[in-house]
């Protein structure tokens, strides 16, 4: 059996090495449309958000783990936005039904998501960041460097990571 295995390759949307690691500058956000912004054609750039602490959240509205994480993000947005926290959602479809913009807009309304959302139907940002899971959270400091990464739901069902993430956000907000 083993000798019949000539080749074993893991391709993926996935792969091993993370392009975006702690201490690095993340890729520029590309594509669109943007939602929850003044115009669907333009949105905030990470360079333009220097001096803020930014959570970049790769998500898709139909993913239950992503959906369940929204209350945590909403709580942080409400609590820390005036101290300099910004959230950028990168909506990356898992299925064809996730792609229509009107479906995403409806979900944002239904879930009360108000931060800017970049719709990444072609997975350009997903690939550029070498992301491979939903949901994923990249926390970027005021100088524009990634300082923390978390993969997986953050909610009452999965509360373990929340205190550490929130402590780090507070610490980064305190850095001037």
């Amino acid at each position, binding site marked *: 059996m083993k000798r019949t295995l000539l080749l074993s390759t893991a391709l993926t*949307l996935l792969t091993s090495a993370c392009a975006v690691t702690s201490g690095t500058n993340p890729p520029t956000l590309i594509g669109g449309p943007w939602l929850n912004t003044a115009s669907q054609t333009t949105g905030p750039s990470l360079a333009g958000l220097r001096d803020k602490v930014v959570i970049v959240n790769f998500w898709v509205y139909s993913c239950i783990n992503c959906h369940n994480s929204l209350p945590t993000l909403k709580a942080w947005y409400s609590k820390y936005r005036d101290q300099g926290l910004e959230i950028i959602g990168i909506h990356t479809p898992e299925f064809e039904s996730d792609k229509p913009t009107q479906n995403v807009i409806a979900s944002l309304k239904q879930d009360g998501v108000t931060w800017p959302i970049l719709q990444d139907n072609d997975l350009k940002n997903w690939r550029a960041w070498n992301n491979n899971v939903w949901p994923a959270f990249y926390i970027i400091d005021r100088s524009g460097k990634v300082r923390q990464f978390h993969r997986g739901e953050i909610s009452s069902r999965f509360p373990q990571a929340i205190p550490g993430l929130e402590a780090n956000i507070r610490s980064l907000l305190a850095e001037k």
Partner: protein
Amino acid sequence: MLLALLLAAAPMPTPQLTVTFSTPPEVHFNRRGDSTLTVWLGKTSQVVTLNGVPDPTDPRNVYLRLNPAALAFPANFSGPVKLSARLYLCDAQNGICTVEEHEKQIKVRAGRKLELVWKVGEDNRLQF
């Protein structure tokens, strides 16, 4: 014509290659998307949609595991077969969903029965 060589899920007479997907504990398959196995003989391919065992707590959305895919070839067929799997996975332990694409190449020999246990879903457990 090569398609005629092919395979199928289950009911063929003498399966020569059985593919079983193995996942870590609590990594399941998301039924909202069809997990598929594409079997290539040269440039000809056939896609097999993978079925599984529904999760009794969420049968519409989750397969606890996939059924083995039994692939049959004509008795005199020998040669390389490329397998491409596209799998919709959810890790209930960590609250993660992902899509994995994997490839393997297998040498099929006439008259031999092979069983392939394909480990998937393990990258999800790697940490940043």
